[in-house]
């Protein structure tokens, strides 16, 4: 029944494969081993103890002592214990686990970008500022908003920034207001953010279709409502078709519409939040724009807003210096002798542009310019009296901006649209192929993700979490379990555009096979996974008596 370690039975796309044991770094350490060599000191050595006095560190930190090959093997062995997008489908709903292009990694490590100090003079940072500027313009176009800040470090940080903008605007109108409305289907970060911003959270119950209940909304919105935080498409993967009415109801009472852009992968190139009434929103570059999740970060959570919120954006804001002399040397493609340090513009070329009036595209044959001819140098503007202030040091997770822009450039308008279409196609394909055996609690058309419930399987004593664990034995990462909370026993599946048909079919076959196992051998599913290094871990013990660090065992 269970996979015997001595057999080589294939389950789905998986065949057992040994992984190596690997102790903690500290357990492998021996005094005197090392993996570093500093160059000879070319200045006089100092006596740290006499220089620092009381502040001198007498006892060294107990860091491990290892050679380079051991470190390489250590982390390589650990890496083989992870599942990853690079290994197969990672259908975590709401997380958009899409392919992370390697050119993104390559360009983010180009020395002139990777080694740039944030306080170098603007004149020596024009290259990275042009990159930031182009990304901002692309994201503004994609969202249909008017202004943007890239400063927030992740989605929740973007929510924080966005709600601060909302608050600052209300304050400028004379009343900060008291509450934020949040649907019961929302991500946990939404209510947590509202609380951090000093608002009370008022729950908004979803309607029978899992969407916003317009009557309840009308009842609950009042003069003390600052905003509604709405995820669109919603966490059940459904587009709020009443979105314009929702915006109207809010705006009639002076409240704003905040959109959580977690599910933007369903919309890019097909619809723009700025066109359907959204006042402020955040994006997740680590979801929609392919920057790697990296085991939990770094992310990046830009916040885009309408013009009336622009004065409140966090400082600093990137602007072109209108008074500075224009770059007269930027008229042709050929390399220029301009002195970058003096604010001149070395090789710059004509921008390709799309003329929406004629439908024609000009400049496609030209390489991409750093900026348009005649553009003045960029600089950071700090003098913004209405700004909400700063939300992090420096300018944001710049390395993620480079990767996201590389992704947008690799796609272009046609690629981004096709990406969205494929993401939606994949989700609907899975829905179609599984809806006969898994309960579909909401029948409205799915966009980029589909949410089933474990109703039929739970009746046999097997829950969504068990099915998820069993998926591991079939070679897949589990879907998102038990979220959104409006679906009892949710299975939230987001395939993204990155899955070939073959992988989708294997996933569907696995889900169907597990459904069969639930009926025939439920215990097999309840005790899954059976093929992993470790079986289900004791989370209760971990939380009750936390061991959060290694300590040497006493001899």
């Amino acid at each position, binding site marked *: 029944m269970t996979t015997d370690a001595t057999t080589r039975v294939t389950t789905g796309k998986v065949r057992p494969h040994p992984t190596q044991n690997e102790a903690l770094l500290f357990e492998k350490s021996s005094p005197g081993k090392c993996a*570093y060599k500093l160059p000879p000191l070319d200045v006089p050595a100092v006596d740290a103890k006499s220089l620092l006095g009381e502040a001198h560190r007498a006892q060294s930190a107990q860091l491990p002592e290892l050679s380079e090959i051991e470190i390489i093997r250590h982390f390589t062995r650990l890496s083989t214990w992870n599942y990853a997008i690079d290994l197969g489908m990672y259908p975590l709903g709401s997380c958009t686990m899409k392919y992370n292009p390697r050119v993104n990694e390559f360009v983010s490590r180009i020395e002139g970008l990777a080694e740039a100090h944030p306080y170098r003079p603007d004149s020596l940072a024009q290259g990275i500022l042009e990159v930031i500027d182009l990304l901002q313009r*692309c994201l503004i*176009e994609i969202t249909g908003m008017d202004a943007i800040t890239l400063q927030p470090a992740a989605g929740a940080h973007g929510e924080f920034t966005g709600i601060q903008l909302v608050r600052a605007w209300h304050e400028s109108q004379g009343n900060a207001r008291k509450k934020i409305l949040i649907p019961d289907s929302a991500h946990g970060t939404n209510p947590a953010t509202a609380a951090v911003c000093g608002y009370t959270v008022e729950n908004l119950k979803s309607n029978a279709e899992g969407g916003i209940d317009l009557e309840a909304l009308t009842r609950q919105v009042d003069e003390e409502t600052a905003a509604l935080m709405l995820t669109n498409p919603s966490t059940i993967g459904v587009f709020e078709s009443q979105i314009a009415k929702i915006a109207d109801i809010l705006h009639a009472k002076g409240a704003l519409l905040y959109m959580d852009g977690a599910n933007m992968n369903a919309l890019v190139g097909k619809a723009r939040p700025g066109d359907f009434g959204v006042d402020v929103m955040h994006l997740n570059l680590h979801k929609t724009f392919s920057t790697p*999740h990296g085991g939990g970060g770094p992310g990046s959570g830009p916040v885009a807003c309408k013009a009336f919120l622009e004065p409140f954006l966090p400082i600093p804001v990137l602007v072109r210096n209108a008074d500075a002399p224009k770059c007269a040397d930027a008229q042709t493609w050929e390399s220029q002798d301009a002195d970058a340090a003096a604010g001149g513009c*070395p090789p710059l070329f004509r921008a390709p542009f799309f003329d929406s009036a004629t439908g024609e595209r000009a400049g496609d044959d030209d390489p991409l310019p750093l900026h348009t001819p005649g553009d003045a140098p960029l600089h950071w503007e700090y003098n913004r009296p209405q700004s909400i202030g*700063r939300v992090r040091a420096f300018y944001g997770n710049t390395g993620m901006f480079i990767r996201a822009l590389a992704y947008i450039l690799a796609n272009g308008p046609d690629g981004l649209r096709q990406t969205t279409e494929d993401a939606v*196609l994949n989700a609907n394909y899975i829905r179609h192929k599984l809806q006969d055996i898994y309960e579909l609690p909401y029948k409205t058309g799915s966009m980029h993700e589909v949410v089933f419930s474990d109703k039929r399987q739970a009746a046999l004593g097997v829950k969504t979490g068990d099915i998820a664990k069993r998926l591991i034995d079939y070679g897949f990462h589990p879907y998102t379990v038990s979220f959104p909370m409006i679906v009892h026993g949710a299975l939230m599946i987001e395939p993204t555009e990155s899955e070939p048909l073959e992988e989708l079919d294997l996933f569907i076959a696995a889900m169907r096979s597990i459904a069969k196992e639930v009926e025939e051998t439920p215990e097999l599913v309840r005790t899954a996974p059976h093929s992993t290094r470790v*079986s289900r871990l004791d989370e209760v013990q971990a939380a009750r008596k936390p061991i959060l660090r290694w300590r040497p065992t006493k001899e």
Partner: protein
Amino acid sequence: MRYLPKSPDERRQMLADIGAASIDSLFEVIPVEYRLDRDLDIPRQQAESEIIDYFRAAADKNATGYASFLGAGAYRHYRPVIIDSLVQRGEFLTSYTPYQAEITQGTLQAIFEFQTMIAELTGMDVANASMYDGSTGAAEAIMMATRITGRHKSVVAATVHPEYREVMATYAKHQGLPSALVGYNRATGHIDLAALEAAVTDETAAILVQSPNFFGVIEDIPAIAAIAHAKGALLIVSIAEAVSLGVVRPPTEADIVSMEAQSFGVALSYGGPFCGVIATKEKYVRQIPGRLVGQTVDGNGNRGFVLTIATREQHIRREKATSNICTNQALVALMATIFLSVYGKEGIRELAEHNLAKADYTAKTLSAAPGAKRLFTGAPGFNEFVLQTDEAPAAWSKRLLDEKIVGGIELSRWYPELKNATLWCATEIITRKQIDTAAKVLAAAPVET
């Protein structure tokens, strides 16, 4: 499009299977007036080679090959090559937050090792899995202290990184967490202890200081802790230059340490992604924000690791969570873990001593130039110091740039009272030749006639 793994035939077949007439029929749930019926106005699809050309041009325009004496919260240290070899393994790079412990043991064990190393370095009992950066970590540390003490006021040193203070102000503004600023001793650059003592009351939740502080001066942590604890307040120590912990005594008297770990093998990357982290005493662990990895066992008694004490977090507690943080800086924390494995117990000390020596030489050499003097000399520092010049920094900066050297950053943008003062940083990367050249340029002030 080269990232999309489908042929036109497969798309047609899938649509037929679903019973959809066209791909657009799947988008009919979007009201027609909101469907975009044109191309996005963004650059056309670029070849990989064009993308590389574009970013290379940007990098060239950024100007490379400059020696830099900039620090101030972002430090250039040598990054061992194996860091990027290892973090670019797809199993680390393209994995999600390790909620599914059975297939993310690699990430989980590495984070457990990170937590251990940070606790060891800072002299705290436990550390979390990371925060966004040092500035947001400091803001979250204040919020954590208010939860622990039930008090709402904080006292912050003016010698904390000015941008950290701005971020703390943004976070505190709407949570009813007023903050008082305490100045510094003009001779030593230390926090003004007398003013601090006067500012702390029975309503103070925490004192937050940075050490080494923004001027590079190491604060007297035991004295500050005594002031905090006498009033029942907590002491939060913010550390922006993590390498200092190789040779500087850890702030063991602190209750919370909020650190920026960028110095541990993380590229400057124009200010991010960096890696904040919060460490604290065991007794406060249930008030710590962000993720924690804990050790446990599986059904067969094997050691394993899980995300734990999640009842603090937003996905469980929603508006009652300790923080709204979700995604953190995991891969950057992995970089730091690899960096610390490479240097190890002896290496981190030797590295720190090199920094100490370079900064000492730089300070002596530059302050020997006519019209230049070092400020805040009465207290020990690490790898940063403040230089005051008779000549305006704008003038000598320009001459330094001609020599492809970026000098210290002018402090008057944050401390108007410090006229012609600049903050210099010398890490192990800087060479004696570059230091000597900088000193010569400084000395070559135009002679007034």
